[in-house]
């Protein structure tokens, strides 16, 4: 065995550094990702607010927000079911955790479909990234950017929920992985609770 091997072996056998904030590295990584994502979403919302405030003829096209209300209800319900899944995983209830995660993923899929339906409604009224029938062209770009970014997160989160649930059931993942996906899912739900008032409720038709 070479001297280099002996040196490396001695190095790896030494004491490991304590994890920062006494938490798992992957959990800390998710929190750092969420912090970065908060900044991205905050930049989107700030840009939207800037445009809306600086534009006197900003459109107020939403006559009914029934679809958005249903989407919000689905999202809040999925936050609760995700939490129940995490709680079940912590107590070792594997079947319960899997079942509640699949329910959460189904809610995520339903939310995605409702979101696409909302977009199709807007498109059928002539709203695109470059124009709309009501006023400033920036409205379409701002609307699709901010809601699209949220939709991207939710659809990716839905896929992640399915994957983690299946791998957890198969024994490859444990309760820590469910905690991490729970963090992400609660975060995307929270973002939606900001988008609803800023994009929809403050632009209801009078």
């Amino acid at each position: 065995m070479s001297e280099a091997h002996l040196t490396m072996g001695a190095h790896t056998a030494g004491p490991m550094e304590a994890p920062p904030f006494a938490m798992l590295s992957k959990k800390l990584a998710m929190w750092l990702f969420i912090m970065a994502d908060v900044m991205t979403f905050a930049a989107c919302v700030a840009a939207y607010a800037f445009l809306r405030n600086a534009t006197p003829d900003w459109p107020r096209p939403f006559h009914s927000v029934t679809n958005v209300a249903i989407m919000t209800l689905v999202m809040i319900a999925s936050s609760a079911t995700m939490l129940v899944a995490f709680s079940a995983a912590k107590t070792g209830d594997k079947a319960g955790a899997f079942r509640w995660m699949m329910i959460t993923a189904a809610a995520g899929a339903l939310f995605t479909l409702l979101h696409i339906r909302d977009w199709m409604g807007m498109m059928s009224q002539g709203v695109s990234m470059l124009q709309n029938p009501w006023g400033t062209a920036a409205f379409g770009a701002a609307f699709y950017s901010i809601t699209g970014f949220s939709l991207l997160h939710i659809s990716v989160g839905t896929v992640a929920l399915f994957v983690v649930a299946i791998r957890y059931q198969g024994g490859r993942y444990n309760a820590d992985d469910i905690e991490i996906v729970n963090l992400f899912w609660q975060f995307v739900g929270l973002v939606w609770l900001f988008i609803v008032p800023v994009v929809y409720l403050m632009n209801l038709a009078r």
Partner: protein
Amino acid sequence: MATAEGSRIKKYGAVYLALLVITALQFFIGYQNIEGSSLAVRMLTFAVIDTILVVLFLMNLGFEKRLFVKFIVLFMLFVLATMNYIWTDSFRLLLFRLTGFSPS
């Protein structure tokens, strides 16, 4: 198992109910004849309450180490506060558009 699941659902029921009530209030306010900054302040106040509930209870930040909580909260507040530099320019643009002046 059904009892254990029942108790878990009860545990977070209060937070879930609070989120539902706050969101319902936001929809109710949206349909009132409130305009401009007072509407924005009310909507954002409820959104901030939502955030506190979700971050503390659903994301379990309240159960993490105090140092980590400080790190997250201070860093986020700093970033969100510094983003508010946009408002002066936004009002400047609005003024130009309303009065017909163009920025030189």
